[in-house]
């Protein structure tokens, strides 16, 4: 007996609950076909309207159980994405969502409008961890009104599923979660990286040229499980758990804590087959526990 791992999220039926996190799978074309067999969906590397060079090196540094990155959303811009990558996505047997970024609500909206209807684009994941240039550089994701405004700007321009990726750098993730749910989000992704810093004691300055970076990897997992759980308690839409998943047991923690699916990121850097390993491990767990489907997995989700 093989357990049924399929899940329904925002009107999409996914063959499994393990998704590739933005920025850790490129545009999907770098990773061999074999390693994509278990993918429930892929979220593309983050894209802006225009091409971006990214930040100066050093861009990454390893810390205990994790890594800091400041890539700076290097990317070719939306037109190159449509030309060079979307045509391949249209051929694949799993949906690809585009992680969209902007400096103002209207830029997010424009991106969604440009990508809506492009074959291969199945939906959007809004990265609200960007500075809002029109509001003095405050992060959209830290302010429920700005987070809702961005979500609404995208919602108005597309009928495709809209997911919002939440930042952990807030005092109450439930407030932001409810704000973007109210603005029309179909699902939430929790969480993005934590902002961190590491100091080079020979140079007396930060190791990353950007000074700070996003912390990912196993080091953040218990924090992420808690925040994803808090988000899931706060809303009725599905929450996709992210943060330090390297093994099936890690993913199952998020699922039991109330998440509908998970994204795997940093683990793919270490093990190119991480997503398939996590997927297979979840199936083995369900079978060992006598469940025939992921939907039978007990959840711990008292509602707020």
């Amino acid at each position, binding site marked *: 007996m093989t357990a049924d791992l399929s899940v329904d999220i925002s009107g999409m039926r996914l063959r499994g609950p393990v998704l590739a996190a933005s920025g850790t799978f490129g545009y999907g074309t770098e990773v061999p076909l074999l390693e994509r067999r278990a993918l429930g969906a892929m979220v593309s590397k983050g894209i802006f309207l225009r091409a971006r*060079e990214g930040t100066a090196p050093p861009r*990454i540094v*390893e810390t205990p159980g994790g890594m800091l990155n400041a890539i700076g959303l*290097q990317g070719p811009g939306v037109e190159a994405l449509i030309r060079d990558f979307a045509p391949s996505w249209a051929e694949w047997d799993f949906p690809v969502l585009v992680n969209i970024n902007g400096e103002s609500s209207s830029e997010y909206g424009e991106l969604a409008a440009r990508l809506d209807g492009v074959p291969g684009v199945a939906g959007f994941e809004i990265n609200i961890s960007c500075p809002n240039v029109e509001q003095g550089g405050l992060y959209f994701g830290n302010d429920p009104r700005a987070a809702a405004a961005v979500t609404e700007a995208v919602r108005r321009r597309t009928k495709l599923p809209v997911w919002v990726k939440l930042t952990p750098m807030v005092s109450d993730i439930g407030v932001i979660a409810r704000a973007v749910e109210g603005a029309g989000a179909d699902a939430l992704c929790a969480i993005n990286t934590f902002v961190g810093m590491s100091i080079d004691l*020979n140079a007396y300055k930060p*190791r990353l040229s950007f000074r700070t970076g996003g912390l990912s990897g196993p080091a953040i997992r218990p924090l992420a499980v808690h925040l994803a759980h808090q988000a899931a308690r706060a809303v009725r839409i599905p929450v996709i758990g992210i943060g330090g998943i390297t093994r099936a047991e890690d993913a199952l923690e998020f699922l039991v804590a109330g998440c509908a699916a998970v994204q795997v990121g940093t683990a793919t*850097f*270490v*093990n*190119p087959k991480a997503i398939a390993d996590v997927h297979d491990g979840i199936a083995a767990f369900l079978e060992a526990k006598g469940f025939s489907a992921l939907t039978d997995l007990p959840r711990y989700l008292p509602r707020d």
Partner: protein
Amino acid sequence: MFVLGLEAPEIASSVRAGQFVNLGWAGGPLLRRPFSVYRADGDHIEVVLKAVGAGTAQLLGMELGDRVSCLGPLGRGFELAGRSAVLVSGGLGVAPMPLVVRDARTSGMEVTWVHGARTAAELCAEAEGDTLIWATDDGSQGFHGTAVAAAPDGDVVVACGPNRMLAAVAERWPHAQVAVETYMGCGTGVCLGCAVPLRRGGYDRACKEGPVYHAADIDWSALPSHLAYAVGA
């Protein structure tokens, strides 16, 4: 300097000079660590390392039969064609050179290898080629000065060593092929962590478009000259 041998038949039979492997091991650091392939023979490859941190200490403490996850061969290697090749290496920059000698000889090239270190004690004893030149910063063996200053010209100049040394190579031989060292995340082109700043602007990936570059293509002023991994080696 230590040499570590690994049984990796698929990599041994296909690796080209300048390509690398990304190693991970149980109980090791989170991210894999990149190593140039030093030698390849039959079913085995070798890498060289210094005992600089906890990670390399773990590798050096392994027993025969222990398992290491080995991803490769990765990156783009050297292009070797012409009558003569001059190899310039400093410190651990010896790493890709034995395969360069192998591939250059296969192409019928005459090989001169110039290797530099701070002192005679830090020189690698395993150099090979038609002509060998040693250089030491303190003059304790061979040429008193840098490997770059000691080297003759050749049709193809190949260099590997600290990024500061490679910047000097770029000054003297803009057409030289250099293998650069960067921080690396995935090694497979997806994380964009190993950014190499280019003279024409922007960045590309040491793990995919590199690690071998034409020296003149790199913006040396923007490439970090000192790597300090925060965890392990």
